[in-house]
């Protein structure tokens, strides 16, 4: 039974290697293989998440007290299931989208492989295992970022490598400190595993900052955010799935693991380390939104928006309270669905029209109604209009920030959330409004000649996502119930 935990990790990696080696010439046979592999894997993940929570598997002892170990707990199972479902949608979407990018064998090979690595992160039972897959996540996504082989893609890859490797190294230093401070183990348990005597100890504070900023690189916290907007040169399915959900959320997930499952929130609440981390989140929230407003390139705007939104989640996590944790996690899942939708809409526009800048989207709502309606729904959700996902996360974050006794920075966070909500509304709604209401005397025929919604490979995933966004509220009580510490 335990060994089953390995399947979702190994299967996609083997499948990915098979795609690279087989080098399919026929798109149909590749599509068949890829979709089978991903769907089967997603089903296994969901079955495991439903029925096998709590199982544990220990493999090689690479470091004393920290073997490679997997355990499926509630947070991991939830994250794994959501990621798996989104993976299916994105793969389906990519079949169509990647036709204009080319070199599909390499793309799908690594895209599928990343799925397995991601499952490794969610299943990890201690920080060393998590770190292992975290490093492999960087390696597996390098070919995806540099897919286009253009000069920008190469620069973006270089920046991505520099940030990711440095961040991982910093995180490892923090992990080593945590292991040293405790009894050597870095296993996860809700509420932390370190003894209470260490409350506020210098070594823990330093360790927390190392892990926060180390893992924070992947979740684009200031001052380590620069790689994410650059990486938006990657093909859109990569930006959507990896740079809005998988890779960046892996960083957030790791920070949540460190904060609530290894060190424990009680040991750090009210320390300088918490203030520094909170400060970084608050600055990033406002900075990301401001930069998004200033970017005219649609995918860059969304990437900066991700920078900002990720720090919402981190803000919740770093508040180190039960409310903050729930707020962060609700936003983790809500933002995952919403941002992937926004990116996929942007991809659909690029795929059909080649337009990448915001000002080129005037009146496009009439030409691509499905895409733009879905985009608008997602925009509403991100801004936080009830009853869409963004509203709930903001609600919980606000409550948590207000209840936060240890740290006055909670109030600063409230201000940042308000400012950022305003900016988010401006940078997203300006697109929607222009798309549907380009103004008096706009010549629809002339400016959007021949532009149409993409075919079902793209519209079906978009529609499913839009429905998911609308129905998110229904799942919320059970989500909170499962995630509560």
């Amino acid at each position, binding site marked *: 039974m335990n060994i089953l935990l390995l399947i979702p990790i190994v299967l996609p990696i083997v499948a990915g290697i098979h795609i690279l080696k087989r080098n399919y010439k026929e798109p149909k046979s590749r599509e068949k293989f890829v979709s089978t592999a991903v769907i089967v894997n997603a089903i296994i993940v969901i079955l495991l998440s439903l029925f096998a929570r709590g199982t544990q598997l220990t493999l090689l002892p690479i470091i004393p007290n920290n073997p490679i170990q997997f355990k499926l707990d509630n947070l991991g199972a939830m994250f794994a299931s959501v990621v798996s479902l989104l993976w299916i949608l994105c793969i389906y979407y990519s079949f169509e989208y990647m036709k204009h990018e080319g070199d599909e064998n390499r793309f799908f090979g690594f895209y599928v492989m990343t799925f397995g690595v991601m499952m490794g992160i969610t299943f990890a039972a201690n920080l060393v295992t998590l770190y292992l897959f975290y490093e492999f996540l960087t390696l597996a996504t390098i070919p995806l970022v540099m897919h286009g082989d253009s000069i920008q893609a190469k620069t973006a890859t270089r920046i991505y490598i520099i940030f990711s490797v440095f961040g991982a*190294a910093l995180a490892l230093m923090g992990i*080593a400190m945590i292991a040293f401070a405790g009894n050597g183990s870095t296993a996860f348990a809700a509420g932390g595993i370190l003894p209470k005597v260490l409350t506020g100890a210098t070594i823990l504070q330093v360790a927390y900052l190392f892990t926060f900023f*180390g893992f924070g690189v992947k979740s684009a916290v200031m001052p380590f955010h620069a790689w994410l907007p650059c990486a938006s040169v990657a093909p859109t399915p990569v930006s959507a799935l990896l740079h809005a959900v998988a890779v960046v959320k892996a960083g957030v997930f790791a920070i949540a693991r460190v904060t609530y499952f290894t060190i424990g929130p009680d040991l750090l609440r009210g320390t300088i380390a918490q203030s520094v981390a909170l400060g970084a989140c608050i600055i990033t929230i406002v900075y990301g939104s401001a930069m998004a407003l200033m970017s005219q390139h649609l995918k860059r705007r969304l990437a900066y928006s991700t920078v900002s939104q990720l720090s919402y989640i981190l803000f919740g996590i770093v508040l180190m309270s039960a409310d903050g944790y729930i707020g962060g996690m609700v936003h983790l899942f809500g933002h995952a669905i919403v941002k992937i939708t926004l990116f996929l809409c942007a991809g659909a526009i690029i795929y059909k029209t080649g337009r990448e800048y915001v000002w080129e989207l005037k009146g496009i709502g009439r030409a691509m109604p499905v895409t733009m309606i879905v985009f608008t729904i997602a925009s509403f959700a991100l801004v936080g209009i009830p009853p869409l996902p963004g509203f709930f996360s903001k609600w919980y974050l606000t409550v948590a920030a207000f209840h936060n006794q240890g740290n006055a920075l909670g109030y600063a966070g409230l201000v940042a959330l308000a400012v950022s909500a305003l900016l988010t509304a401006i940078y997203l709604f300006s697109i929607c409004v222009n798309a549907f209401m380009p103004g008096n005397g706009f010549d629809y025929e002339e400016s959007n000649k021949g532009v149409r919604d993409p075919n079902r490979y793209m519209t079906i995933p978009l529609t499913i996502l839009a429905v998911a966004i609308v129905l998110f509220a229904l799942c919320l009580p059970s989500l909170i119930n499962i995630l509560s510490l």
Partner: protein
Amino acid sequence: MGIAIILLLMIGAVAAFVCKNDKTARLIGLGTTLLNAILAVIMTVTVMNSGPQSVTFGSGTWAQTINIGYIECFMACLFGIVGFLIVWASMSMISHDVEEKKIPMFYGLVLALLGTLNAVVFFESLLGVFVSIELSSFAAAGIVIVKNQTENVHAGLKYLSLSILGSSLVLMGMVILFVATGSLHIGGIAKAIQGNNLMASKSAYILWAYGLISAGVAFKAALFPCHIWLPDAHGTAPSPSSAILSSLVLKAYIVFYMKMVFGGVGFNLIANSPMRMLLNVVMVVGVVAMIAGSVLAIMQTDIKRMIAYSSVAQMGYIFMGIGIGTELGLFAALFHILSHAVTKSGLFLVAGSIIEQTHNRDLNKMGGLGILMPVTMALFTIGGLSMIGIPLFVGFNSKWNFASAIVGSNNYWLLIPLSISALLNALYYLPVVIRAFFGQEAKECTEPLGSKERPIKDLLPIILLACLVILFGVASGPVSDFLQKGIEILTAIGR
């Protein structure tokens, strides 16, 4: 047992020198190193079962002692097994670099070198150590010069001269220690320093002695900025020589240094005496080496020079570990000796294979190599990932050990250079891999997959080295325990 190993290698060396035929020389080289590896393993098992062994010749001040403890066994196994794999790999590679007539000489020098390296590690008495150090310098320069091209004759001479400078500094240090302690025996020195409280009464002598020895070892083990000979020597030597030089030769001197510092002075005195200052210098220089070596490596376009500069950086790690001066620091340094030996020898042999097959040393022209030589480049990738410190490869365990040592000694600031160094390693290994497998050239490459690959049987020793990289990466426990025991024994000499 220790003597048997040294004698075996020396006899092998003489036999290889006198034989005229290059085929016989190869066989002698391969057979002797294989026997050496087997003997080393047997010796290790004996020591594990019945404790350290010691043999003394003569008596009084000039008595020569060979002392085989855990650390010595560890090094003997490393010299034996890695040496054997490199010599095995050299069977198919050496004729590319060395003329047929010089092949007996090459194997003679390699065996002599391995013999003297073992002697450097085994000898407990400083005179024996010094003689072995000197002999090994000649043999080491010899396996560079044996290629007989202008550039590596120059490099070899540079190496030899700086090496001699290093040994003379070491000698001066030894003489001062002798004057201060009246002993030419690490155990005796330890007794004098730790037992008679010499650190208080004669601290100037001891600091001078250890300062000179440190400077000498810095030259011999290429600690930045005394590394200037290394890129030339390792970069131009025949690839199997480069592998031996970087993975084994440098390490023997470092182990000697560890024995002098930790066996002679001990952890207690290191923490609470002027020795701390000296080791602080070693630590800071090690950190500078770690960064500078990698920065210089990034600037290289020649694959072998890049790997050579990477060695400079890795030596920095080891000296940093020594400089931390705690048990964890020493352990990290010792483990890194193993980790660097198995990784770097593989990388040099891979570089040799690439140069042999494509006649190209320029890193910028290695695009698409992953299509032409997939297995070779996969081996390079394993080495590179280990150097960066990706888990499952032995380099990660090294990085973890260093991080623990740093945390344990409360020098938190060192964590930043350690992280930067990991990043720098990534910056010169990953682009090679990426260009080989992905970039534009790989896409446009029309030749069939694996068309320039060497036959698998020639690659086998390198594959085995890569297996060692992974083996020690996933299961370092037994080696770690062994080394920890070794550290206990090493520092217990004087107590």
